[in-house]
Each structure stands twice: as C-alpha cells, then as structure tokens.
C-alpha cells in the first residue's frame, strides 16, 4: 500500500476534511450560518469543549482518562463566585481558581500513579466529589455580577469579525499543545506510555511523573475552562458545565483518538470538537430538533469507528489486488 494512501485514509484527516466540507456547504446553503455573529457564537460555545479537549487528548494518548474535568470546571467556577461574593479582587480570584484546578488534577494524578488505581474509577469518584464540594461552597447561589471588562473578554468578539476575543488565547494554547504532543520528547514519551507502559518504563521514561504532570495540566485547563465558562455565560453556579466531560470525550473519540492509548493526533481531536459544534449549530438553524441531533451525534460516533475499519479493509483489498 503506497504511503500516500495510508495517510489519506487516516481518520483524523478524514474528520478534518469532513469539517471543511460541512463548513463550506453551510456557508452556501444555510441561512444565518455564515454571518460573523453566528460564527462567533459557534466558536464561543464550542470553546469550553475545545479547551478541555487539549489536555484530554494528551491524557488519553497516554492511556488514561479524566472524567472529573467538568466537575473541576464547576468547582473553580463556584469558588470564583464565592470569593467574588466575599469581596476579593477578580485578579486574585482567578489565580486561586487555577491553583485549585492544579490541586484537583494533582489529587487525580496521585491516586492514579501512587496507588495504582484505574483512572476511570478514580475520576468517576472525583467527578462526584468535586461537584459535591462545589455545591457545598456555593450552594444555591448564582453569581452573575462579574466585572464587565472580563465578561466582555469572555463573551465578546474582536471588532465586528467572527473571532471571539477568547479565541486568540485558545489558539496559542492549541499551538503549544500540538508542539508538546507531536514535536517534543515529552510527546513522544506520552505515545510510548500509552502504547506500552512497561516498555516505556524499560526505556527509562519516568512514567509516573509524566502521568502526574498530565493529570495536573488537565486539572489546570479544566479550571481555566471553569473560569471561562462562568465569565462567558456570566453565571457562576455549582452545576456549571455539567456533562461537559461526555461532550469532550465524544468529540475526542470522533477525532480518532484511541482510548486504549498510544494513538491519535491533536488535529483530529480539535477537528472532532469543531465538527460536532458546527453540526449542532447548523442543525439548530435548520430546525432539527434536539432529539434528532442526539441521534446524529450517535451515528457519527459509530461511523467514526466503523469508518476507519472499512477504509482499512478497502485499502488492504486494494493492496492485495496490486500484489497478486
């Protein structure tokens, strides 16, 4: 099988291509899609998922998973609201919240690496625990009166363009994540750990430390997302971002990241995130009901795993015909 063909049937490329096709088609045919306001809505509402998808991709590539991200985001939003009500300055609050995210991630990481517990189980536990703490912290309060310049930053766009202001920092984070995963020794080691933890250890890779770092960064990014969420929607509640983890996982899976670890690209994951976001936007504009949208998401997921298999089978069959 020629190399170009193998590359062409790679699933992340396919998702990227589908995303572009969906965008182009929608520009042409869907009323209200192409204007700057709608695009900024689309991007703005997808940003929380995209933000969490960055570290989640790395974590999943290393063979672990963090289901507590949405709760961490909720917790940091709740703490932000609480401290704000206490009269602290927002400039002090945000670093505190980020630090809290680091702690949440660290707890997950330590439980996984020190005690050797499966991350799925641990983070199902912390999913409940962090959300519960958020509930204790903020209770039934709903804090909305954050300073306007922050709200504007989180919800506004650059001039009249379609680019939300918060998109620029996201792009910077994306570039950093891509470089880390795909161009550094750290990223290489992440793939190795995901594909075979034991072999990675025998190659002198510090597996536990690396996983701890990944969990911590995931916690940090989750809390950043929580802060962003509270500002973007101008509302800090303990149940902010509930269910975000499932959206992130669905998107990342769609982008071709293998949950057994060791496989996938960030490009694919982000393409998956924005593909789901764009489809939802388009379907809503076309008056497709929420229920049918769920079905579409499901079908896409199933296709995302069946697709590459079928593609591979076709490729193999073709190669066989070529050799014989």
């Amino acid at each position, binding site marked *: 099988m020629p190399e170009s063909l193998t590359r062409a049937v790679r699933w992340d490329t396919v998702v990227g291509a589908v995303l572009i096709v969906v965008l182009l088609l929608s520009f042409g045919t869907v009323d209200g899609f192409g204007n700057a306001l709608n695009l900024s809505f689309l991007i703005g509402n997808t940003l929380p998922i995209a933000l969490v998808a960055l570290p989640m991709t790395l974590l999943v590539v290393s063979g672990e998973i963090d289901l507590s991200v949405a709760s961490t985001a909720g917790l940091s939003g709740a703490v932000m609201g609480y401290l704000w009500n206490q009269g602290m300055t927002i400039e002090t609050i945000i670093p505190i919240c980020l630090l809290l995210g680091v702690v949440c991630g660290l707890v997950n990481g330590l*439980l996984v690496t020190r*005690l*050797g*517990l*499966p991350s*799925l*189980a*641990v983070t*199902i*536990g*912390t*999913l*409940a*625990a*962090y*959300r*519960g*703490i958020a*509930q*204790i912290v903020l*209770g039934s309060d709903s804090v909305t009166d954050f300073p306007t310049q922050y709200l504007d930053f989180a919800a506004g766009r650059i001039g009249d363009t379609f680019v939300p202001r918060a998109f620029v920092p996201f792009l910077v984070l994306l570039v950093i994540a891509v470089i880390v995963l795909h161009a550094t020794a750290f990223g290489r080691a992440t793939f190795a750990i995901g594909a075979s933890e034991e072999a990675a250890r025998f190659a002198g890779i510090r597996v536990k430390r690396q996983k701890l770092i990944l969990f911590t960064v995931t916690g940090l990014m989750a809390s950043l997302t929580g802060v962003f969420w509270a500002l973007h929607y101008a509302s800090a509640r303990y149940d902010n971002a509930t269910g975000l983890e*499932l959206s992130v*996982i*669905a998107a990342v*899976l769609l982008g071709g990241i*293998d*949950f*057994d670890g060791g496989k996938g690209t960030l490009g694919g994951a982000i393409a998956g995130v924005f593909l789901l976001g764009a489809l939802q936007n388009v379907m809503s504009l076309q008056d497709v*009901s*929420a*229920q*049918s*949208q*769920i*079905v*579409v*998401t*499901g*079908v*896409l*997921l*199933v296709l*995302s*795993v*069946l697709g590459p*298999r079928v593609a591979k089978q076709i490729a193999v069959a073709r190669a066989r015909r070529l050799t014989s």
Partner: protein
Amino acid sequence: MTVTTPDKAPVAEVPRSSGTRLVDRVFKMRELAILVVFLVMIVITQAGNSEFLSEQGIKDLLLNATILVLVATGQSLVVITRNVDLSVGSTLGISAFAAGDYLQGGGNPVVAIALAVLMGIGFGLLNGLLVSLGQVPALVVTLGTLYIIRGIDSIWVGSRQITAAGLPDGFIDFGSGGISAVPYLALIALVVLVVTAYYLKHFGSGRELYALGSNPEAARLAGIPVRKRILAAYTFCGALAGLAGAMYLARFGNVDSGTGTGYEMTVVSAVVVGGVVFTGGSGSVYGAALGAMLLTSINSMLPALGVSSVWVLAINGILLILAIAVDRIVALRVASALKKRNARHA
C-alpha cells in the same frame, strides 16, 4: 460427551501451598472488603437512626438496589470480556416506556415484561454486532448507541409520559410489594444474580468470557468463538437492562423520555467499586452486585443520618474513592506479603 473423573484421588500428592490458600483468600477478600465496608456503614447508620433497619427501611434498601444490581450484573459480563456497554441507561429508558405504553393500552403485565426484555435483547444484539463484527472499540460504539437509542426514545416518546394512574394496580403493587421485608423485585434480582454467577463459574462458555477478556488474541488461538461470546454477553446485558426497565416501571410507576439518563455512570461505578476490572478477565458479578448495593445504600444512608443533601454528592464521591483505594491497598499488601513468603515455587 462427559469426561468423568477417575475415582481415585490423584490430587492428593500435590499439597496446596500456603501461598495458594493466601491467593484464594485474596480473591475472596476482594468482595469481602466491600462487604465489610457496606456492613460497617449499615451499622453506623442504624446506630444513628434506629428507623433505618425497620421493616420498611430494609425493604426500601433492597428495592433501591434491585434495579442497579440487575443492570450491573449484565454490565459485569460485558466488562469481563474487556468491553463496556454505555447504552444501558438508554436501553432501560426505552424498554420501560415500551412496557408502560403497552400496559396503558390495557396489556398483560407478563407480556409487558417480556416486551421490555425483548427490546433490551434487540439493542444488546445491535451493540454486540457492532462491537464484535466491526471489531471496534466498545467505548465509542456504545457511547454512540447511547445517543442513538436516547434520541429514538425522545423522538418516539416526545412529551408523553407513563404515570402510575395508567398502569394496572396489580403491576404497581408488585413493584412495591413483597414477602415481609423482601420485595418481589429483589427476589427476581437475586435469582438472576445467583444463576449468572453459577453460570460464570461452572460452565465452559462462562469461563471463556473471562478468558477472552484476559487475552483476546490467546482466546482466538485457543479456538474460543470470540465474536459469539461477545455477542452473547452484550445480548444478556441488554436483556437485563430491558428487565430492569420493566422493574423501573413497576417501582416508580413513572416513565418519560428522560428515564435512565446518566444511568451508565452509576452502573459503571457500581461495577468498578465491585472490583470488576476494566481491562477484562477478572471480577465477579457478586462483587458488582455488592458495589451496586453500596452505591444505592449510600444514597439512603446519608439522608437517614440527616446529612444535608448539600453534602451528599461530595460524601458520595469521597466514599467511592475510599472504597476503591481500600480495596487496592489491601490487595497490594497481601500481594507483597505473598511475594515475600513465596519467593519461588521451589
């Protein structure tokens, strides 16, 4: 064809080493640890609130656990084969509605239950076929079918709902009735549980589920019909989710398009807490059932102790982590003790 054992006892000359007995004990202990945690919590709650273990209290405990125990039993079978079925919540919801819809139209309760089970079998088969024939990751596929089934459910059900008023009284009474403190539903769950556990331990195809979860490639080489077994595990899991749907209907008398949403997390938690390993090949349905009991009971214990519901979620999560951590630490301790005693089989 039956191979019978020769009557003489050939085992005698291989004495079971102390290490083996220890290993045996560790394996038994896995469930034991959870059982102890569970009992301790019950005792504490009872000490704090004497109503807790009243007849009504016990009945409530058992009833609460029943549905989760059923679904967790099915789920463990799938998890043992190194797969997972995330769509159980959706399956439960849609089969509960199907049964309710049929009953509201004046149907027979037994047929309604059968209908729910059949519906579950259908979706289980769908999952099983996708996973085993496509040989694709179960997590993704069943996350997909979770959405698909839920979507179909919502489109079909719309804003309709089944209420107790529309159901035959006998059916509802069956859902909350029982023999003194033991509800009928709990009896059904118990029977399913015991039969499943016996099957897993004593039948070839049951052991093969463990084998193929432990090492799928080796299972293929050993001539185990891998696809067939995975398909069967999913079908069984679906059937139990369907049965659980019927029981949900009888118990709560109330079903709409959202029934069972998010249930997969609870089920997965129960299975994990119960010591069924996600990488397949080990764990037991008794463990999963205990995990289910533990999880549902926490939700009854905390309110019974007067813990404000604000704290429930956090305590729930922390207990969950503690349960897994304690289990793990005990296992590690014993394993290292074992290693030191049993340096080498010489």
